[in-house]
């Protein structure tokens, strides 16, 4: 048993890998991919790779795996952050680093207020920090905003009207906090908790308000469901068992637990369609969202034929109705592929049209884009099979509470002082 325990401890070391991330500029002019410490950006206007500029450090700009990237404030800002405990704020206009913020702990999620005045980030201990962008200094000091007690925050999001900041964690909960006028004194007034998931919450997305005065919130989770919430009351409006509905899982049997965790959500067409990435699904599930009836239903499963592509992150290009997907991993044990990534695009994500997975010859930006974002136009398909497994193992390790069998638990207690005395 000793070896067993030791083995499970050492497994932890080898699976600390980060998935590849993707973000598309709201006007569709730039697309960014982060994999490992690499940040790769492609500009469609000049049809070329962007070279990022940061006067304070030499490349690479991040020293460890990037865990979160996003565009914000209608495309005026871009942020990247991760395991190197630094948050970098970039201006997508010239791709210069506006400022570098140091965190005490590893960063797991970021959000930008819609007015572009504040950047928030969550660290690995459950604290959310806020950075005031008004201050005219290069080095900005983050101020604590709110805290989830000792939990890993998986996602941070501002509500479309900027009234609330939402934080999801691995303890199954989503906290909705009033975002105050002066947030530098902390955000103390909690509006609601959205409770109902039975595993870690992995992602959040808003269905923008149309005639509805309140926007609806979508969340994806390790429990293989996508849920719809009213954030003012925290009420659960609808649960879509997306893995069962898409035919990945028998409704009675759970083949392997956590096999079908929802990893990312992306709303398109003002929220009428929701793209869902699920672990072990080679493709995506499109859900149609009925805002007035407050329901979700599976519209289509788009599978990717001919290659091993389990998307790790999704992004929407609203101007062209394309869904951008990336898969990849920061490093692969046993393979010589640091920062492995692969980008695919689904076009025609629309209610009327038939979605099509574009071939590499049809992808916007062509070979040049693939060379920029993937590092190489060619790829080894087998590596992505291993990569998908590695990403899954890392996610389980990070977000699922370890269940120790009884004997194992006793073994771990063997060095405890009160046990020793008995002998």
């Amino acid at each position, binding site marked *: 048993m000793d070896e067993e325990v030791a083995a499970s401890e050492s497994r932890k070391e080898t699976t600390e890998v980060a998935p590849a991330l993707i973000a598309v500029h709201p006007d569709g002019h730039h697309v960014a991919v982060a994999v490992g410490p690499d940040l790769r950006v492609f500009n469609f206007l000049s049809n070329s790779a962007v070279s990022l500029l940061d006067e304070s450090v030499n490349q690479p700009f991040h020293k460890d795996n990037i865990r979160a990237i996003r565009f914000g404030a209608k495309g005026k800002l871009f942020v990247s952050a991760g395991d190197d405990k630094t948050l970098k704020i970039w201006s997508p206009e010239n791709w210069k680093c506006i400022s570098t913020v140091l965190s005490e702990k590893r960063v797991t999620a970021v959000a930008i207020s819609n007015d572009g005045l504040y950047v928030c980030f969550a660290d690995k201990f459950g604290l959310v920090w806020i950075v005031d962008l008004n201050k005219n200094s290069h080095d900005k000091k983050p101020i604590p905003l709110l805290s989830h007690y*000792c939990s890993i925050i998986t996602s941070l999001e501002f509500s479309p009207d900027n009234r609330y900041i939402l934080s999801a964690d691995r303890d199954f909960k989503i906290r909705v906090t009033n975002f105050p006028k002066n947030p530098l004194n*902390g955000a*103390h007034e*909690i509006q609601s*908790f959205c409770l109902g998931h039975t595993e870690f919450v992995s992602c959040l997305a808003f269905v923008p308000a149309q005639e509805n005065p309140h926007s609806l919130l979508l969340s994806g989770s390790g429990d293989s469901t996508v849920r719809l919430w009213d954030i003012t009351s925290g009420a659960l409006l609808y649960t879509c068992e997306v893995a069962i509905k898409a035919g990945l899982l028998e409704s009675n049997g759970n083949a392997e637990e956590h096999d079908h965790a929802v990893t990312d959500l992306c709303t398109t067409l003002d929220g009428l369609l929701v793209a869902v990435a699920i672990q072990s699904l080679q493709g995506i599930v499109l859900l149609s969202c009925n805002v007035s009836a407050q329901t979700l239903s599976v519209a289509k499963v788009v599978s990717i034929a001919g290659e091993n592509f389990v998307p790790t992150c999704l992004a929407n290009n609203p101007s062209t109705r394309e869904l951008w997907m990336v898969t990849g991993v920061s490093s692969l044990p046993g393979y010589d592929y640091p920062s492995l990534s692969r980008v695919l695009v689904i076009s025609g994500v629309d209610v009327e049209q038939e979605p099509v997975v574009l071939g590499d010859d049809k992808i916007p930006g062509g070979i040049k884009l693939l060379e920029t974002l993937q590092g190489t136009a060619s790829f080894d398909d087998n590596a992505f099979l291993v990569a998908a497994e590695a990403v899954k193992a890392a996610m389980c390790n990070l977000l699922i509470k370890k269940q120790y069998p009884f004997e194992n638990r006793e073994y771990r207690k063997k060095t405890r002082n009160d046990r020793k005395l008995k002998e």
Partner: protein
Amino acid sequence: MPETGGNSTFSKSTGLPRKRFYRARAHSNPLSDSHFPVPLSPSHVDYSLHYPQFFPSSDKADSCKKIKFADIGCGFGGLLISLSTLFPETLMIGMELRDKVSEYVKERILSLRVANPGQYQNVSVVRTNSMKYIPNHFEKAQLSKMFFLFPDPHFKEKNHRRRVISPFLLDEYAFVLEVGGIIYTITDVEELGDWMKSCLENHPLFEPLTEKELEADPAVKLLSSATEEGQKVARNEGQTFQAVYRRIAASDQIS
């Protein structure tokens, strides 16, 4: 635990459980992953298990009575027992992280109910980590009183985040307390007393009670006298430091 036959863990004279059979470590790590059941949401709390006389069946539709008092870190339950007879119509719950201690309180309440028919039906206890799972147990503005009596001092600065009163945890307590609800804290450690007072003082959603209000509140008298910890301090003629604050509505200027 050695079972030496019959009801040996219960006192023969009083019928109450004997503390010596529920010896527990004095501290428990609030940061560790928990392996006890946690209700998915406040609506999943089964009141019929806790208060069978008030809720004869698990069908909750017929009653809208909710738990109003929470004793966080209730220890051996002394305060709960005193409050039970003081507020016989109010549902109250103790929350305790240490498994054996919560077992003891459970047995204590059960035997008190047997010994005093009709009484102590409004108290119960749950094993949980209240620093992590308060929102799973109570709805927004559900509670009218929260008690934090003689919490762990956690002297080292690196362990301050384990303290049960902290600026960020107060946000969650303010969420489950109704406006006008009262938070009671007491400790025999001066350093911790100062800490709790300053946390509450600096929080925009709490204000201190006036001297008059403190005198009029029957629960305040119980703080130092009702609990086992409090009695221990009194025996040793130690000093206590209390801070009692009221939840106030958020004003736009404050935030």
